[in-house]
């Protein structure tokens, strides 16, 4: 449904995308998971036909986003990361305007407006000006504007930003519902759990590059069916490598090292060697294989550190 090939894009002095490629199948929820500044919004903006890539191509439903721009855009619903609403107008007036731009009118427009308002429980406040809404309400309105014309393809850029946990779950449900109705979805987030819960396939993106693509299981397997251990301590002057027998070093920096171990006993042996060598260990963290582990392995960072 969506084929992205080798997208490159730089802004004045930042290389935002360094050759991003992926494909999204029809009816799939595809997650684009990455930390701040990874290039998620840049990717979505190019997919939505607003931003021009420096090179590479995007084809959507068999059409080129540049050549068949108008036709492609009609198929898509875009939910931007910023809250892009007219604050003076009410939710209803906003929906009427945006729905109108996608060709809805009359009874259809009225019906779809009611439908999406109910979806996020904004019906009661539908006639109040948006500027009187809470952040979460605006976020919900921001979401449904992208859904009003029942698009076949939906691009969602961090639609749960700054929203409370309960409302988040609600939004995830709505997205699942749209997918169940046959829409193809690209969903960007920096929340691992959202990607885990929601997405059929995930691409991990960082610094403008796709580091890994696959189903949750496939990506987790990348991290190895192994525990990921992170030790914080004082290893100055110690040859860590020699202590890590039987393990695989993933990442090391001042005072932190991460390695994977095939089984628990190996870890016991390693810790014993650490103590014998007189290494001051402040903290030991063991993680079971997970998306997060894969993420750390791929990016060398924990997502919440960004």
């Amino acid at each position, binding site marked *: 449904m969506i084929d992205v090939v080798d997208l490159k894009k730089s802004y004045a002095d930042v290389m935002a995308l360094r050759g991003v490629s992926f494909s999204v199948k029809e009816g799939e929820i595809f997650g684009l998971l990455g930390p701040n500044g990874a290039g998620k919004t840049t990717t979505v903006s190019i997919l939505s036909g*607003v931003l021009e890539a420096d090179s590479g191509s995007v084809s959507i439903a068999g059409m080129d986003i540049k050549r068949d721009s*108008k036709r492609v855009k009609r198929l898509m619903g875009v939910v931007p990361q910023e809250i*892009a609403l007219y604050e*003076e107008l009410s939710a209803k*007036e906003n929906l009427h305007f945006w729905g109108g*731009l*996608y060709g809805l009118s009359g009874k259809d427009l009225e019906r779809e407006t009611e439908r999406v308002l109910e979806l996020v429980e904004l019906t009661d406040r539908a006639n109040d*000006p948006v500027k009187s809404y809470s952040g979460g309400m605006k976020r919900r309105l921001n979401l449904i504007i992208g859904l009003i014309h029942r698009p076949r393809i939906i691009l969602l850029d961090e639609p749960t930003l700054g929203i409370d946990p309960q409302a988040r779950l609600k939004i995830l449900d709505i997205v699942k519902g749209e997918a169940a109705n046959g829409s193809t979805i690209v969903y960007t987030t920096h929340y691992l759990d959202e990607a885990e819960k929601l997405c059929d396939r995930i691409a991990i993106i960082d610094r403008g590059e796709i580091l890994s693509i696959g189903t949750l299981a496939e990506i987790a397997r990348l991290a190895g069916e192994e525990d990921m251990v992170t030790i914080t301590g004082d290893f100055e002057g110690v040859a860590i490598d020699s202590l890590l027998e039987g393990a695989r070093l993933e990442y090391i920096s001042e005072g932190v090292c991460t390695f994977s171990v095939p089984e628990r006993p190996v870890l016991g042996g390693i810790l014993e060697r650490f103590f014998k060598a007189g290494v001051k260990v402040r903290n030991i963290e063991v993680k079971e294989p997970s998306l997060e582990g894969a993420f750390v392995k791929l990016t060398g960072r924990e997502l919440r550190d960004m």
Partner: protein
Amino acid sequence: MSRYALSIALKDLKRIFKAPLSLVSMLMLPIVITVIVGFTFGTSGDVKIPRIKVLLDDEDGGILPGFIRQSFQKVGSGKMVELVDTKADEGRRLIDRGKASAFIVIPKGSSSALLDKKPIEFLITKNPSELFLPAIVEEILKTDAVMLDGAVRLFGEPLDTVRTFLKGEHWPSGSELSRVFALARRRFVLITPYISDSLITVQTVRAGEKNEGGNFFALIFPGSMIIGLLFISMIAQRDIVKERARGTLKRVLSGPTSAGEFIIGKVMYNFFLTSISLIVLLVIARLVFGIGVKSPLALAVVSLGTALLSSGLVILPYGLIRSERAAVALMPSYIIVLCLMGGAMMPYETMSRLLKEAARYSPVFWVVDAFKRVMFLGVDMGDIMRNIEVINIVGILSILIGTAVLKRRAAKGL
């Protein structure tokens, strides 16, 4: 395509109508400016422009002064200028005492010198205590001078043609002149439109027609009006920058609406606001300041063009400005420069020659000039064709360029 643009315009109107107070104060802007300027200049309370008294010392007595006399008589059906023949000493004494607006001396032998293509000079002494009136006289004389110069250069052979011109037996028509001027050297061609326009102006005001006389307010009204309209556009079109900063522009462009349609929507919205304000202004001009208009068609055409130009002139810089803060900081100066240059702040008639030359490069000049001609001189459509052309072309061009700039910047993520 216009459907998207229309939705955008209607949405913006809906938004502005949610804040009626700011809408009204915005629409009042040109009115407030005009009234303030009007009463500042017209402290005497006399809104009718007085007849311009011109003293003429004709030492030549030939065809040249005849031509000049005639040109003064043609302006405002002869009601606007009162030409009084005087002798040199008497004239100087009267002008020194402020008894007239200007004193013109045409030296002996001017006519024959002219026909021999020798340079001639006529002297004009202006009453320093008056602002506009001597300037008008000077303007008429200068127009005469350029016309004569052109006529003599081009019609050097046969001189008969020139003589008929100069004797006032045959007043050249606009098309005749255009044909003549088309042959002229480039330097000359550059100012031709204005010259032939002036001529036509003189020509169309027929003798014997009832003329209310020039109205003082009609002179300052166009300038104040365009300043006000540009400020309305500035406020209305600031939305372009806001929409860009807040992501709604990006959202619009991610749908089937193009940047061009977005801008057309903004222009329609702006057009509506400036038109309302303009209509109110013209009604006020009529009722309060007693400015009558002979050709409603000419007025309507110039007004439409002006509303368009007013949007265009602000869309262009808004395409380049990224933040609302920069917009607020930069735009007023931009508009003031355009207006100052174009003679909307201080009357064109009182500007120095250099500034007058420069004024032609400000589109505002062509608006002010057109409104003056329509409201002050009471000319018809044909006499402001050049203005209409410039106003519309500049308006459309700046809209097109503004759109291209905006489109480019959105695509580049700037």
